[in-house]
């Protein structure tokens, strides 16, 4: 047992960190709920025939006038809050993970190459990254949204909203990956195993992806978790501001925007429940990210 724990240091730290365990539990529950939303949810919020306006604005079960069928109440359209949230989280996670994947592939690829080749290539990539950093994510999203509206036929625009949103988020996140990958690659380039591989005459792509990449995965994994939270938040912000997804296919951000209208009208649950849900998701992912950073950085232990 002791030998086993010694071997899996990370696991030992995990079972001794209540915060990490609670965070993992929350994140996993939310993700399971999101993935299986079509089977768990009471109604399909995208299907107008599955809910009725007569059920509109019902409060959660612990308040008077609630319908026990809708545990957390309904919104003004009569959509079950739980169903909306599960479908919304599903959409938010899909966009977040897709954006993160694009950002990671783009960022790690460019960062590795910049660190490996150095010189002019490095300078060009990093200046582009600096420019990207100077643009707020919302501006990037507006820009891409504008371009998409300009060049895509109107019929396609609705279908491609998710893609546009994903691309906008990915573009504002790749810089983190590129910078971290480049800095870690610089460190590895001075290691003698890399020099040995170069001396042998191995292809640059093999040196980068077979030799260097596995050695810089630690910090990149940490960035991935932290940036997943950012991506979800960014999507929520954009949707909240109306640049993101429309009301008929609500993500978490769209739900919060809808709820804003009811902030002062007594139907608090329409705003607060999706908001708390978003906060719980983002906070637990961030705690997991912090925990991973501790595991990968022996100096902080």
């Amino acid at each position, binding site marked *: 047992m002791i030998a086993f724990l010694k071997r899996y240091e990370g696991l030992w730290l995990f079972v001794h960190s209540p915060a990490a365990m609670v965070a993992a539990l929350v994140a996993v529950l939310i993700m399971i709920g999101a993935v299986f939303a079509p089977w768990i949810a009471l109604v399909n919020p995208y299907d107008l025939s599955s809910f009725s306006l007569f059920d509109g604005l019902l409060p959660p079960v612990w308040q008077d006038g609630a319908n026990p069928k809708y545990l957390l109440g309904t919104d003004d359209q009569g959509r079950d809050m739980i169903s909306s949230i599960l479908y919304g989280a599903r959409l938010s996670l899909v966009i977040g993970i897709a954006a993160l994947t694009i950002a990671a592939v783009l960022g790690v690829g460019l960062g590795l190459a910049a660190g490996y080749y150095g010189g002019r290539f490095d300078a060009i990539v990093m200046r582009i990254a600096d420019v990207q950093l100077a643009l707020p994510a919302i501006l990037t999203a507006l820009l891409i949204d504008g371009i998409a509206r300009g060049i895509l036929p109107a019929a396609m625009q609705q279908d491609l909203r998710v893609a546009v949103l994903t691309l906008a988020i990915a573009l504002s996140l790749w810089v983190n990956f590129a910078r971290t990958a480049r800095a870690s690659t610089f460190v590895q380039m001075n290691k003698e195993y890399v*020099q040995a591989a170069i001396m042998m*005459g191995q292809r640059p792509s093999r040196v980068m992806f077979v030799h260097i990449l596995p050695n810089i995965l630690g910090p990149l994994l940490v960035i991935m978790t932290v940036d997943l939270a950012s991506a979800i938040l960014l999507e929520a912000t954009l949707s909240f501001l109306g640049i993101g997804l429309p009301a008929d296919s609500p993500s978490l951000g769209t739900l919060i925007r809808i709820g804003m209208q009811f902030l002062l009208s007594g139907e608090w649950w329409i705003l607060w429940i999706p908001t708390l849900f978003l906060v719980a998701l983002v906070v637990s992912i961030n705690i997991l990210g912090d925990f991973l950073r501790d595991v990968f950085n022996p100096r902080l232990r």
Partner: protein
Amino acid sequence: MLTIKDLAVKFPSRFGDVTAIADVDMTIKPGEIHGLVGESGAGKSTVGAAVIGLLAAPGYVANGKLSLGDTDLRKLTPEQAHEIRGDRISMIFQDPQTSLNPLMTIEDQLIETIQAHSDVSETAARTRAVDLLEEIGIKNAAERIKAYPHQFSGGMRQRVVIALAICTDPELIIADEPTTALDVAVQSQVLDLIRRLARDRQIAFMLITHDIGVIAQIADRVTVMRNGRVMETGETPQVLGAPTHPYTQALMDAVPPLDHRIARFRVPEEDTAGVVTGNAAEKWLLEGQQYALTGLTLQDICVRFAGPRTSLFRKPEPYVALKDVNLEVRPGSIMGLVGESGSGKSTLAKAITGLITPSSGTMHLGDDILPDGKARSRHHPSRQLVQMVFQDPYSSLNSRHRIGAILTEPLWFYGFVQDAKERERLAAAMLELVGMAPDAVDKYPHQFSGGQRQRIAVARALLARPRFLICDEPTSALDVSIQAEILNLLKDLQAMFGLTILFISHNLAVVRQMADDTAVLRNGVIEEMSATEDLFARPKADYTQKLLALTPVMPREWQSEAVTG
């Protein structure tokens, strides 16, 4: 006078307390230099840290008596212990780069320390600081004291650290590897200074080091440690000259002598057994000798790096790392290359392997021209014929790859063996040849010690069927007994496969044991090159003579007899 009796230090861990040192006895009289020697992990630094009360948390003194004069060091409150540190006990650290504050002038650091321990005015403290610097041999002290640490050279910086240590007139100074980061010339000055301070000021020194040469040169008494226990203690001539403990004996056997050459190091049997097995690998290597012995010739090699830019509009002055280097490594011989840090030894190795492009000069491998770094294609035959064993075995193996993957890479990369199973078999046989268990192929580098990793690195180089091997300080990161094993291994392999080796080292004694010819490099220029025995017996260049004179040596009569054969 420092008295240590039955000292034990433990480190609690979640798997129970780990005993770092136990049953350590030692006394150090005023004016005595007491050497504490042992290999890495022996617990020498832990003894020093326990005495000064700076054990790394959560370590604690579990047992024993620690006293300085009449003061019981274990009974002190934290405040009292703080008072004693710096006042009665001082410390000199290994690395003078990091033990001085780079943002404070030497003056401020000295005055701060003096005023922290005695109630004197700033002017008085400054006068004392200047006197101290004069005493430890810094000329123009009144002026130089205004400088920042980076304006001093490494040796000067270590002197300043020593000045800081003695500025409060301590009774005891703990010097933890004080000369390990220094070149021999500077090392000898620092050692002279320590000896003078012990004699003139009657300071007791605890000199912690892994270098037996240093101990032999200045320590009055010596304690040999291993795995947290004292193996042997006594007068230096007696312990080193006539060791009674088998460990001390083995340690002395492993120290390369500077003044004569021995055929092989005598090492404990269990580690040499491996060399005779690994027949499959041996056979494979021998059948791959399609080339004859391969020498290397360097003609007028110059390497320049871009220097620091001083003006936006002018081209930066180039920094010359190697200047007109001519070197001829005879086929089948070992060429030793010695020099202090910054002399361009590693730059030369990188130029040969193509990692650096020389600005002028030509290289020949055997009879063929060896193209410069950038002009050398990835498929050039030299990529296979020239292999390298690096200095740091902790960074030369990819920690995320299995040993099997590391060793089979050259086999498939150079297209030697097509069948994956056969590659694994050959890798395992090669491990046996370099003296390791063949089941290591399934493990990862972190599961091995430095010496074992260096063996794996040698095995990787051999699996490329090289004809020319560059060893860049292959043993300087290793303990002396491991160094002896690796040097023996390299000698055996060289004899077995007729390799030509360029052996780079800062350690003259090691080069004397290994090399047929030796070249001395200084500031990018070859000062002297001749047959090793000639060079050591009759050095011609002033610089070589100086290097030889300054390297700490043991008196001949202390040395163990050479193993003949």
